[in-house]
């Protein structure tokens, strides 16, 4: 070891020498701030699984008798269950993307999992992926095996005859041309890939693929020509009869050659042009092939071939078959019955007659279905995923059971109120607008979230001027003011003037509350509206602030073959609104077509400052504007160019009301993903947060360095919005795919600066620690329910270490105002920020040993609010910080009440200690009596007398403690049990104890005193005589255990 020690010393010396050498240079490199510097400040994920979120793909396999399920969330990673869905764990959280398009389990080896990233249900809010991932150990570890530029993947097929042969169906990029699309094949388990089927043009990729598993060389692929722009979408060409690259293809030699199946080559197929195509071979009878073909009505619909694709028959073309093909184009045939087909659509529809007719089998599920898994052993057992999560049916789709354990909720925005604990508000993709508790006794179950409105939800606020009301909206600016208790809602959307035509409201229409808190509210169409009377009247305070480009206003023609004008493509709209906290007349507006407009006179005049922002691509979305809390001229803005195929983050700052702008995220920064939101801290102007499609990024120095926040394994999920609680200093993170995450106190980040980072270790200021009202709650939820954790109810302190602590002690103690150590705490060891907690309690009282444990007395009294000192000793260096402990602001107890409670708890605490001494004192005598007796012949009169004395003494002990053994509920109560119960009750309520409790404390003290007196009387009467008899027999006399001896013994412990 000596060698190693000296070796280490050399390294340390070298580093020091090096440091001093570099210290001579004028500008030392700042300490690197990376993910782990900041992520020790953990976050808690409060869900919710109540509304859950969109599921894109499902696969399952039996391992023995048990069902293993893999679920691909649209933007929330991959989840695995090994018990048929009773419990899930996320298995993809360490990967850099969370959008999933396809999940396929190797049919020969259930430990091999293929995941295609990038969802293929290409709605306007869809995320992006970065290729194919493979796990060979059931999802523990993943490797990206290629196709990195595919952006999205619709299907992966594994050849069951040789599982190294894998086919990937990739639609490819949604927003831009690309050659990285089509059908790819590997023959070496993913090491190398070749494109086996190419699209007709740079916007045509593979939309669905199916294999004849009995003859895996036979593959069908639907090729799809598609493109989305901010203002339009086409499935197929630009119009019902425009040229399209879409087509259906078949290979019978493992993808080496393909023949196109169309009107000419395969009788019965409709005339082109086509849009999105789904195809499925019936597993039980592979000559039966189904294809859903999007084509101009009445040509579009379901087609069936009974001869391996040679000829086709047109079947169902009901509304739910042909609705929104870009979002619903999947067919699942029952594994055993070729005539039973499922078509996920708005509703889930099913046919039992080979596709002639379909019924809606959605039952009580959410709707907007995307995938179905049918149990090959039991066709009644189905698993489906839709926009509202995952659902199970055990009766063939008649009824559905909701998975309440997938917190993959897709928030667009978040806001907070000033309740205690505060509530979290936000709207979600196809999942309305919800209010949830940020904390609740027992944890945040699904029932602690309440739906307040409908449709797709976006911005949502409590009305600060009347907290009985909430503002929420659904798509296209349908804003309502909603009564929180009755749920009565009143639509208050600003409406067009005479002959004005349409007001252009974005899908995700911005609503903004004035930071003045006076209830002023804004909403943006192409004009900005302001209301000061809860939406009763609206002032139009701007001209059209957009480019008003008529080419981007043709939504009635959007959709390609199937018109789809749902407000999702509404463009040339206002997308961001922000009133300056420093000046209510200073309002910023960002539009989806690239304008940044500012007024400094409450809307009388507007200036478009986009021309002053160098480097921002033209006409991109201004995704957020954040006016500074410190200086009226300063503002931040994010720009999102992903709808032009540019996924880079653009974040800028102005300090002169928009005249000049500088990038806040420079090109070298590790930030990636298109930017949704920027927030400036409320206290430290250099502390910035940026949410992108790939996660949350933090800068401690005004944008010079950035680090991804990954506290508590928060994955690289889209961060759409952020809110900082002004009272609680919590950062609330709205993710689009993994619900709400909360960093309970960001105060420590505020003091992590260039000055503090180079230090070996230091404490960072945290907010005062609240003694949360002790309260129980919740009940057994089973294992199939998600429950969001509460913030800790312990005192929190935060320290920073430049390096992980590995060798030697890292000791943390808490001292009271007199310098007495009142707590010793296990320390966290990580590099960067560490968060440790102290329960604010004394050690548990001493309790006499009895038949059973008295759990009510297993914890000590909670100390009174006040100022404590935390002392950290790291190696030999000591660091201290002040810890302020305050009463729960909700508590109605006065300081005197609390003091009375603490004093009574301490009285009982000490009484338990006295009782323990009394019992030990009795036992000490008993032990001596028995020990001396054992040294005498059993029939010796003294031995008999000693044993009788022991029994007499033991009777006294048994008046103090319960002694019946056996493990049954004996109900035996003695003074100890009564006292421990009373202590537990007084300790558990931090208000004034009841008079009954106060009196009972005295009663118990009195009763204990009586027994002690009896024992003393017995000693006075018997001990001298016994001792003289012992002396006569040359045996040691019996000495009493003194309180001093006993205390000294305890101190040693």
């Amino acid at each position, binding site marked *: *070891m000596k060698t*190693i020690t000296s070796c280490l010393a050399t*390294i340390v010396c070298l580093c020091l020498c090096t440091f001093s050498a570099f210290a001579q240079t004028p500008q030392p490199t700042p300490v690197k701030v990376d993910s782990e510097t900041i992520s020790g400040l*953990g976050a808690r994920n409060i869900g919710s699984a109540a509304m859950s979120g969109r599921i894109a793909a499902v696969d399952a396999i039996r391992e023995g008798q048990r069902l293993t399920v893999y679920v691909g969330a649209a933007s929330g990673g991959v989840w695995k269950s090994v018990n048929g869905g009773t419990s899930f*764990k996320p298995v993809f959280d360490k990967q850099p993307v969370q959008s999933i398009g396809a999940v396929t389990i190797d049919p020969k080896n259930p430990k091999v999992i293929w995941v295609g990233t990038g969802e293929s249900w290409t709605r306007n809010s869809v995320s992006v992926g970065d290729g194919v991932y493979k796990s060979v150990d059931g999802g523990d570890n993943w490797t990206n095996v290629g196709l990195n530029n595919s952006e999205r993947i619709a299907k992966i097929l594994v050849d069951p005859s040789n599982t190294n042969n894998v086919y990937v169906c990739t639609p490819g990029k949604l927003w831009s041309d690309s050659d990285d699309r089509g059908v790819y094949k590997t023959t070496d388990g993913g090491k190398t890939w070749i494109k086996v089927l190419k699209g007709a043009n740079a916007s045509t990729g593979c939309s669905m693929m199916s294999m004849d598993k009995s003859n895996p060389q036979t593959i069908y692929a639907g090729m799809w020509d598609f493109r989305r722009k901010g203002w339009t979408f086409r499935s197929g060409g630009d119009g019902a009869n425009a040229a399209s690259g879409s087509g259906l293809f078949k290979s019978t030699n493992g993808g080496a050659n393909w023949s196109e199946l169309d009107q000419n080559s395969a009788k019965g197929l409709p005339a082109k042009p086509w849009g999105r195509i789904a195809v499925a071979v019936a597993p039980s009878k592979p000559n039966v092939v189904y294809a859903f073909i999007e084509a101009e009505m009445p040509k579009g619909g379901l087609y069936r071939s009974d001869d391996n694709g040679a000829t086709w028959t047109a079947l169902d073309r009901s509304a739910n078959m042909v609705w929104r093909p870009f979002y619903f184009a999947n067919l699942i045939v029952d594994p055993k019955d070729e005539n039973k087909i499922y078509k996920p659509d708005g509703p889930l529809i099913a046919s039992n007659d080979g596709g002639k007719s379909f019924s809606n089998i959605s039952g009580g599920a959410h709707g907007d279905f995307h995938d179905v898994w049918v149990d090959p052993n039991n066709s009644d057992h189905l698993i489906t995923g839709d926009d509202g999560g995952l659902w199970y049916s055990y009766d063939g789709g008649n009824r559905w059971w909701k998975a309440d354990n997938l917190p993959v909720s897709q928030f667009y925005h978040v806001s907070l109120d000033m309740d205690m604990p505060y509530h979290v508000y936000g709207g979600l993709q196809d999942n309305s607008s919800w209010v949830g508790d940020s904390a609740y006794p027992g944890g945040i179950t699904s029932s602690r979230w309440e739906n307040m409105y409908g449709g797709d939800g976006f911005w949502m606020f409590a009305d600060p001027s009347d907290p009985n009301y909430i503002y929420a909206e659904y798509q296209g600016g349908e804003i309502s003011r909603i009564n929180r208790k009755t749920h009565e809602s009143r639509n208050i959307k600003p409406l067009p003037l005479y002959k004005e035509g349409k007001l252009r409201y974005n899908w995700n229409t911005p609503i903004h509350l004035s930071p003045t808190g006076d209830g002023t509210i804004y909403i943006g169409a192409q004009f900005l509206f302001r209301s000061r009377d809860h939406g009763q009247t609206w002032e139009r305070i701007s001209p059209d602030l957009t480019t008003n480009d008529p080419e981007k206003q043709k939504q009635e023609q959007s959709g390609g073959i199937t018109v789809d004008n749902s407000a999702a493509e509404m463009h040339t709209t206002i997308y961001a609104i922000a009133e300056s906290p420093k000046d209510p007349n200073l309002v910023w507006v960002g539009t989806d077509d690239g304008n940044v407009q500012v007024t400094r006179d409450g809307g009388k005049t507007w200036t478009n400052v986009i021309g002053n922002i160098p480097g921002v691509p033209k006409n991109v979305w201004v995704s957020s504007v954040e006016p500074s809390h410190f200086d009226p001229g300063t503002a931040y803005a994010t720009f999102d160019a992903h709808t032009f195929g540019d996924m880079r983050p653009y974040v800028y700052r102005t300090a002169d009301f928009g005249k000049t702008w500088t990038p806040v995220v420079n090109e070298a920064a590790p930030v990636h993903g298109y930017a949704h939101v920027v927030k400036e801290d409320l206290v430290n102007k250099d502390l910035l947060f940026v949410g992108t499609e790939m996660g949350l990024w933090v800068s401690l120095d005004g944008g010079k360095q950035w680090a991804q926040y990954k506290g508590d394994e928060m994955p690289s999920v889209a961060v759409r919005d952020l809110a900082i609680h002004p009272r609680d200093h919590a950062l609330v993170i709205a993710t689009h795919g993994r619900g709400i995450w909360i960093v309970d106190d960001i105060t420590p980040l505020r003091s992590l600066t260039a000055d503090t980072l180079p230090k070996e270790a230091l404490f960072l200021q945290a907010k005062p620690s609240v003694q949360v009202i002790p309260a129980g709650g919740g009940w057994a939820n089973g294992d199939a329910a998600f429950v969001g954790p509460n913030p800790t109810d312990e005192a929190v302190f935060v320290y920073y270490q430049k390096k992980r602590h590995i060798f030697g002690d890292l000791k943390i103690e808490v001292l009271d105002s007199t310098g007495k150590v009142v707590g010793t705490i*296990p320390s966290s060891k990580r590099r960067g920020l560490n968060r440790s907690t102290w329960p604010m309690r004394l*050690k548990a009282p001493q309790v006499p040993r009895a038949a*059973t444990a008295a759990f009510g007395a297993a914890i000590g009294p909670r100390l009174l609010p006040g100022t404590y000192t935390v002392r950290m000793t790291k190696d030999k260096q000591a660091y201290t910080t002040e810890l302020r402990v305050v009463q729960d602001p909700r508590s109605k107890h006065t300081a005197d009440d609390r003091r009375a409670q603490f004093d009574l708890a301490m009285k009982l605490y000490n009484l338990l200690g006295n009782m323990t001494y009394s019992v030990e004192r009795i036992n000490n005598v008993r032990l001596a009596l028995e020990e001396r007796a054992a040294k005498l012949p059993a029939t010796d009169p003294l031995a008999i007398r000693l044993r009788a004395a022991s029994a007499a003494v033991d009777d006294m002990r048994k008046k103090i403690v319960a002694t*019946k053994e056996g493990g049954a509920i004996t109900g035996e109560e003695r003074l100890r049990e009564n006292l421990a119960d009373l202590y537990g009750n007084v300790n558990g309520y931090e208000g004034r104890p009841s008079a009954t409790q106060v009196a009972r404390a005295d009663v118990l003290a009195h009763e204990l005193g009586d027994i002690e007196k009896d024992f003393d009387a017995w000693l006075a009467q018997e001990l001298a005589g016994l001792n003289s008899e012992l002396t006569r027999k040359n045996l040691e006399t019996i000495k009493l255990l003194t309180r001093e001896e006993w205390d000294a013994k305890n101190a040693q412990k």
Partner: protein
Amino acid sequence: MRRVLLMLAGLALLAVPASAQTADEIVAKYIKTVGGADKIQSVKTLRKLGTFNGGGGFEAPIVEENKRNNMVRQEFSLQGLTAVNAYDGHTGWKIEPWQGKKDAEPLGEEAMKQIVEDSDFDGPLVNYQQKGNKVEFLGMEPVEGTDAFKLKVTLASGDVRYYFMDTDYYVPIKIETKRMIRGAEREYETSLGDYKEVSGWYMPFSVESNVKGNPNRAKVTYQKIEANVPIDDTRFHMPAVNASAQPGTKPPDAADTLPKRTDEKKTPAKPPTKP
């Protein structure tokens, strides 16, 4: 300055790139860092005295005793009652005294698996081949901001542990454990720190563990670890049925602290030590 740079270059060479590492090299460096095989082998018994911290102010003294080759006894005390989990190389047993039943009972499947793992005196990496364990180097993975070598250790039982070894010192800073219980995986995480020397062997004095993904951690801090203290084998054997439970003896008294009579079964060589 030039000299410093040269030395720095030398240092950089010392830092072997991850790809050049093998599992055996990492394990060898670990063993060397913590004291070497001789020092480890010279330790025949260990007694660890510590504090269990379960959060919310719940603390309890604990005692862990290990004896070569594979005996272990773990005690957890509250209000004078002591729970025991122990294994003598053949039989795993427990005493759960909290509700008034003090008899030794056999360990259930999960606790048994755990204690058999805990009975491996010097851990699964030392002499791993002899023990039938398999070690693979999976590459680098950061642990809470510190670069770590990730080793996959497949125990002879088939259960898997991932060891995350600090890249400067080659000691484990985190262990992920998977145990198959009734056919289902149970996953745990353990963080290790405060390594200190005990008879020439560096061991962690701070151990935090939790069910994987659960933020509630059980934290153990050892105040004292003693090596080569005499520990009688009887401490690890499952006690016979309590004499007091036999017919004709006095009524059972769970609260009785008196030592056993000399005519009863042999007393332990040393009474349980409380910290």
